[in-house]
C-alpha cells in the first residue's frame, strides 16, 4: 500500500513536470504568434525593410535567411557526412579518434557569438571576404558542423551491425557496405537530422551579426547573375538575416512601427522553424516508406 502511494505521488510529479515544460513552450509560442500574426501580409513578407518610416517588410531578410541556410548546408553537409562515416564505420578506438571526438564536442559547445567573432576576425578581416553571405555561411558551417556530424553519426549507429555483417558475408568491401547498405538504410534518419539542424541554423543570429553583417541592401530580383552586386545570388554582398533583423530593430530600430515589425518578424521566424521541425519527421517517415518498398 505504501509503495503504491509513493508510486502515485512520483507519477503525478513527473506528469506535472512534463506538463509544465509543454505549457512553457505553448505559452511562448502563442505569445509570439498572437502578437505577430496580425501583422503578417503578403506585402510584409515580400517588401524590403524601411529604416525611418512605417510600412516596411522583411522580404529581403527572409530571402537572405534561406539563401544563407542553403549555402551553409551545401558546405557543411558533405563534411559532416564524411566525418560521421569515418567516426562510426572506420574509426578504431585510439588516441587520434579520441582527439577528433573531443574536438567535435568542444566545437559544439562553443557559444555562437564566439564563433561569430572568430569568423569576423578570420574571414571578414583576415581573408578580406568582408561582411558577406560567404563569411556568414562559413561561420554557420562552423556552428552547424559538430551538431550535424553528431546527428548523422547517430543515424548511422542506429543501423544494426547485422546489416554490416550481412554485407561483408555477401562479399562486399567495407566501403561498398557503407555506400550500398548503411547509407540507404540511414537516409530517412539523416534527412530528419539535416532538416532539424536547418531549423537551428535558420534561427541563428549571434554567429551572423559580425559575419554576414547587419545591413540588407535592396536587391533586384530580376537579376540572377551572381556576379552583380544587386543580384540576390551574389555571395559577396552583406546580408542581414531575419534573426539578425529582429535583434537589430529591437536594439536600435527607429521606424515608427518598430513594435509591429518586430512582432511580425518574430512570428515569421517561429513559423518557419516550426515548419522545419514538423516537416522533418514527416519527410523522414515518408522517405523510409519509399526506400524500404522500392
Amino acid at each position: 500500500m505504501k509503495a503504491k502511494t509513493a508510486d502515485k505521488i512520483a507519477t503525478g510529479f513527473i506528469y506535472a513536470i512534463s506538463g509544465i515544460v509543454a505549457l512553457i513552450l505553448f505559452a511562448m509560442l502563442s505569445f509570439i504568434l498572437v502578437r505577430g500574426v496580425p501583422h503578417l501580409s503578403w506585402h510584409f513578407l515580400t517588401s524590403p525593410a524601411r529604416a525611418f518610416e512605417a510600412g516596411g517588410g522583411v522580404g529581403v531578410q527572409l530571402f537572405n535567411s534561406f539563401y544563407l541556410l542553403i549555402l551553409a548546408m551545401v558546405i557543411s553537409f558533405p563534411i559532416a557526412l564524411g566525418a560521421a562515416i569515418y567516426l562510426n564505420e572506420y574509426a578504431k578506438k585510439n588516441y587520434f579518434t579520441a582527439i577528433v571526438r573531443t574536438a567535435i564536442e568542444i566545437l559544439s559547445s562553443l557559444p555562437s557569438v564566439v564563433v561569430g567573432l572568430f569568423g569576423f576576425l578570420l574571414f571578414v578581416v583576415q581573408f578580406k571576404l568582408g561582411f558577406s553571405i560567404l563569411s556568414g555561411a562559413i561561420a554557420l558551417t562552423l556552428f552547424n558542423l559538430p551538431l550535424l556530424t553528431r546527428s548523422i553519426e547517430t543515424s548511422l549507429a542506429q543501423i544494426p551491425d547485422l546489416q554490416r555483417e550481412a554485407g561483408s558475408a555477401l562479399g562486399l568491401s567495407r566501403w561498398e557496405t557503407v555506400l550500398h547498405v548503411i547509407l540507404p538504410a540511414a537516409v530517412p534518419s539523416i534527412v530528419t537530422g539535416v532538416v532539424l539542424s536547418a531549423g537551428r541554423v535558420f534561427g541563428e543570429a549571434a554567429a551572423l551579426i559580425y559575419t554576414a553583417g547587419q545591413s540588407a541592401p535592396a536587391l533586384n530580383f530580376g537579376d540572377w547573375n551572381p556576379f552583380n552586386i544587386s543580384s540576390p545570388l551574389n555571395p559577396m554582398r552583406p546580408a542581414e538575416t531575419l534573426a539578425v533583423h529582429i535583434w537589430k530593430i529591437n536594439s536600435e530600430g527607429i521606424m515608427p512601427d518598430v513594435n509591429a515589425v518586430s512582432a511580425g518578424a518574430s512570428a515569421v521566424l517561429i513559423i518557419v522553424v516550426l515548419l522545419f521541425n514538423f516537416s522533418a519527421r514527416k519527410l523522414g517517415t515518408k522517405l523510409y516508406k519509399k526506400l524500404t518498398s522500392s
Partner: protein
Amino acid sequence: MTDKQEKTILSTRDVRLWYGQKEALHGIDLDFPNKGITALIGPSGSGKTTYLRALNRMHDLEDGVTVTGSFNFNGTDIYAPTTDTVDLRKRIGMVFQQPNPFPFSIYENVIFGLRLDGVKDKAVLDEAVERSLKQASVWDEVKDDLHKSALGLSGGQQQRVSIARVLAMSPELLLLDEPTSALDPISSRNIEETLLKLREDYAMIIVTHSMSQASRISDRTAFFLSGDLIEVDQTKHIFLNPQKQETQDYVSGRFG
C-alpha cells in the same frame, strides 16, 4: 586417397583462435566433403560458432582476434595474405542467426551481390531471383510481392530470402550459424526442409543448438566442447554409438 581428396572441399588443421590473450579454440582438425550437411554441436561457449566464423574470416571485422592453423578451401589458403576476403566471402556464403534482409525490396535483396558485381542484364537478374528464391523454397510465397519490402515478411520468410540472397552468388560452401534459433517451430521446419533440398547440390556447415535438428538434417556431426573438437563422425554414429564419454553425456542430455 586421391578419391578422398577430390571429395573434400575444405580442410582445416590445428586451428587455434585467441580473443586477446585467451585461447578459444585449441587446435581443431576438421575436413568437410563437397556435398551434404555437417552439423557443429556443443554447449554454449564450446567454440562452434567461433570456428564457423573463422572459415570465412568474419573475425577480421573484430579487433584483437588472432587465428592460426591451415585452412585449405578448394586449393585456396583462406588466411594467406594474398587472399581477397571480398572474393572469399562470395565463394563461402553465410546465413546468420537473425534474419537480416536489407531494407529494400525482396527482388533487390536477392540480386544485391550480383548487381554490385556489375550484372545489368534484366533477364539474367530475373532468372537469378526466380532460381534462388525457388532453391530457398520461398518463391511461391513471395513471387507476387517481389517489389515489396523484405522487411514486411515473416521471420521465417526473411530467413529464406536471406538464404536466397546468398545462393544467388553461387557459393561453393554455405555456412549457417544457428539459422533457425530465432524462428518459430513451423518456420524452423520450413528452413530445415529447404536445407535438405539444398544438400544435393551444396556443401553446408550448420551450427545448431538443437540436437534433434542435427540428427534430422545432417550427414555428419562434429561435437565441440570448451574449444576442443571431441568427436566427428556420421551423424547416426554420433547419436547412437559415440566413441567418447563426453559425446555420450551431451547427446543423451546429461549436460549442456
